[in-house]
């Protein structure tokens, strides 16, 4: 597959997952799905799974509540996976994931603040005239078609087409020690997401349970599936206990 072809495919996949992000929400834009998907389309599923899983870990628990814009893992995973395939090196993903994610969040903030607000004002005029075509133009075609093309699809093409060469050259220049250092930092980032999630699930009201999960995982080595089952059982116990005491009153 030529580099031009790969860049075009990467840009197309990027368009489709952003469409999903605004439309049916079937999660093709999460790193754990987008990585393998991008890898598969570019002809290297395995590296896609590796990048997807690695980036997913960085943003696993990151949940932004309400209207705040999180670092954008979509742009990040898409470009990182494509670069990993074209350069044949998965470490490139770890090094590029966070910077691209921060850039992506800036683009998304720009979109939400200026571009979509502009479209919304046009949309309102159409709505007040009950003009369905106008509503679909400003509500769907412009935001999903035009805006995403400018903000995400074309940049992906450029990054993959021109970036692969540059990435290989930079990677060759960077000492292995520095890549390992970035890797070390990357493995710590997940803690920010976990901390955010703890805030949104009211850690302060259920904190002993956090340590219960930690002990089972750290001391007993129970895997994630096991921890999940444990959590379901504990919720079941609390539910039964509470309902019983409630009915006795």
């Amino acid at each position: 597959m030529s580099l031009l072809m790969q860049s075009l495919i990467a840009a197309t996949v990027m368009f489709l997952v952003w469409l999903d992000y605004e439309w049916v929400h079937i999660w093709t834009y999460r790193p754990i799905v987008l990585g393998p998907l991008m890898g598969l389309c570019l002809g290297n599923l395995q590296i896609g799974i590796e990048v997807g899983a690695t980036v997913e870990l960085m943003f696993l628990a990151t949940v932004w509540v309400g209207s705040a814009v999180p670092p954008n893992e979509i742009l990040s995973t898409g470009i990182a996976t494509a670069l990993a395939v074209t350069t044949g090196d998965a470490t490139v993903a770890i090094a590029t994931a966070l910077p691209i994610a921060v850039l992506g969040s800036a683009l998304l903030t720009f979109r939400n603040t200026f571009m979509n607000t502009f479209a919304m004002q046009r949309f309102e005029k159409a709505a007040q005239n009950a003009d369905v075509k106008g509503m679909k133009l400003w509500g769907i075609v412009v935001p999903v078609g035009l805006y995403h093309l400018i903000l995400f699809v074309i940049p992906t093409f450029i990054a993959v087409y021109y970036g692969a060469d540059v990435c290989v050259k930079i990677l060759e220049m960077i000492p292995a020690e520095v890549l390992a250092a970035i890797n070390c930092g990357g493995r710590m980032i997940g803690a920010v997401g976990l901390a955010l999630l703890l805030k949104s699930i009211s850690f302060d009201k259920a904190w002993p349970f956090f340590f219960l999960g930690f002990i089972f995982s750290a001391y007993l080595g129970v895997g994630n599936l096991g921890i999940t089952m444990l959590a379901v059982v504990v919720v079941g116990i609390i539910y039964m206990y509470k309902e019983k005491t409630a009915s006795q009153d």
Partner: protein
Amino acid sequence: MAKLEKKDLWKLFWSSQWFTVGCNNEKFESMGFTLSLIPVLEKLYPDVEQRKEAYARHQEIFLTEAQCAKTVIGITAAMEERLANEGDIPAESIGAIKAAMMGPLAGIGDTLYHGTLRPIFAGIAVSLAAASGYTSPLGPILFFVVMAGMGQLINWFGIFKGYEKGVELVANIEEAGLIDKIREYASVLGCIIMGGFSAVFVTINLGIEFNAGESVVSLQSTLDSMIPHLLPMMYTLFLYYLITKKKANPILLMVVTMVVGAIGYLLGIFA
């Protein structure tokens, strides 16, 4: 008199997939909400002047979680139908119901769907992928099927049951304190799982070693023999403290974490 039939609700189900499109910082999801209602309003108000009025009243600010929003859309469809056919409810009450439901539904959707189920299944998917040496796409496929299926199920439930039960549904949920209960159980479930995740999905190892007589003692293995994975857990809670008590910016924390980790590695503090 136009009645909404099953096929109209299916049209609503599909048009409401556009719910988050064009989300902006001024009115958030008002565009998506209006786009969702197109098939309903087109059918209920054959008169163009009435239709204009109907579209105009949905240009208000609206913000909630995307999947749970479908319940509001279902209920709104029921209310619009009543207004169009019987005219015995004030038009403003539709906006009031929408505004009243935004908060509680966002609470459920963000906590349960995005805050609990998504990280759980993503965590399992990552474990499966890593366990196979990144060769098996089983984990990603599992995540995709479960999460996409669940999302569409919530959408379906919201549109059809929301329409069917209309306003009654909201009243019931709020009365029984169901929302508080769901949040309470979700936080127990989430805390246990995140406790487990903090041990496996964050890695911080100390690289410091010192000489004790003849032998070299690694600080990390000393720590591990007491409390394994202590540092990732402590660091997570420290960040939680910074975010809740010091209102630290999470994006900044991510960048700082990355930089501290990388420099720490180069200095030999981390391994």
